[in-house]
């Protein structure tokens, strides 16, 4: 049984926790206590730093080249603690849920909003969600993707792919500033494709329009993303920087 009331017992137990000498049962009790006790968390961090120097007693060992690839691919599909928290926020705050569970309804709303805004001779019922020059063409869209920030879960761009093969990337929210000397690069990856394909560099707040005939075609659940890259784009032909916005297509 561990005692977390007395000061020096608390310190010793926190030290033993970091060291790893608590019994399995005491370790589990301690972990539960940590969740409710910020001062105990501080004690643990202090021990982590006090004992860190003991790690010099273990000689370094160079990992196999394969190890980073394994970690990187696990990370790509891992759910993070932040996403778990996000999963608990009200559903109406979560674009991701709209995309996942009722992506079609989300897309339909956007198209409807755009069409209403664009209907000639009728007052727009919805204030211009999408800039006017784009809206006229959305009627022919076959696929739509809402790209959102993985960090803030807010939508920043809409990708619209028309039957004719024209693809538009349209900003729908102010997204701030890209650091000097960096660019935003636009990518797509079909389900099952080995690697993303670059669709070019994107300027903040500006639409991009291109023809996708050189792509293998656009499918439902196709990934589109914007990543932060060096000024002239990724030098290696695949994303190297953080994902700024990401989303998947839904068929209309």
């Amino acid at each position, binding site marked *: 049984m561990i005692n977390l009331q007395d000061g020096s017992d608390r310190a010793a137990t926190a030290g033993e926790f970091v060291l*790893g000498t608590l019994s399995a049962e005491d370790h589990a009790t301690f972990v539960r206590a940590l969740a409710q006790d910020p001062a105990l968390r501080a004690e643990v*961090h202090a021990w982590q730093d006090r004992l860190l120097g003991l790690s010099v*007693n273990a000689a370094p*060992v160079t*990992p196999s080249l394969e190890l980073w690839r394994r*970690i990187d691919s696990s990370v790509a599909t891992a759910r993070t603690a932040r996403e778990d928290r996000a999963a608990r926020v009200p559903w109406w705050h979560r674009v991701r849920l709209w995309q996942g569970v009722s992506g079609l309804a989300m897309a339909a709303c956007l198209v409807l909003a755009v069409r209403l805004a664009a209907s000639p001779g009728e007052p727009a019922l919805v204030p211009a969600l999408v800039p006017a020059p784009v809206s006229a063409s959305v009627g022919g869209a076959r696929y739509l993707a809402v790209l959102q920030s993985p960090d803030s879960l807010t939508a920043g761009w809409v990708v619209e792919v028309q039957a004719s093969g024209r693809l538009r990337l349209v900003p729908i929210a102010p997204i701030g500033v890209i650091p000097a000397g960096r660019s935003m690069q636009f990518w797509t990856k079909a389900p099952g494709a080995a690697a993303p394909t670059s669709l070019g560099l994107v300027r903040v707040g500006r639409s991009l329009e291109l023809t996708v005939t050189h792509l293998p075609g656009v499918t439902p659940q196709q990934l589109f993303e914007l990543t932060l890259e060096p000024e002239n784009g990724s030098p290696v032909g695949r994303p190297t920087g953080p994902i700024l916005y990401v989303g998947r297509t839904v068929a209309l």
Partner: protein
Amino acid sequence: MPTPVSPFNYEAAVQACARGERFALQALYEREARWLLGVALRIVRDRERAEDVLHDGFLQVWQHASTYQPNLGSARGWIYTIVRHRALKEIRDPGRMQAMDPRDLTTLSDLQQAAEAEDRGLDIDRLERCLQRLDAARRACLVNAFVEGYTHEQIAARLSAPPGTVKSWIRRSLVSLKECMT
């Protein structure tokens, strides 16, 4: 001796991981993987399992980066605890105990000296000074627990002392270490 200052900002890197920036995890990996693999290998004593531990550890760092609180302590200490605890879980899971290959013992002890030469911006002077104030047997308890991942019982067997004694030595050593280092 001047205190070496590490130019790498571990806290910023973990916070970047929390924002979903994968290059930050890669930067942490490039900087610490071989040291962390050394720490994990010392505990699990099997190269493949040590790499599995590192894989899981880095995944945990990524997944829990948003829970790291920089005001409480260093990000490097946080990462080492994640990896060490993952390694300890590996060897203590029931049914997964593995006898050590006697050859590993020599390899491990041969390698041991190399670690101390390189400057990694770790402030070990104060720890070293405070450890020296403990008597040799008690100091060995702490080092064995940290480096080898030994339990009270394993240390007790090595020192031919009762486990209860080892436990109280460790706890008292920790309390005096804290006093000395604070």
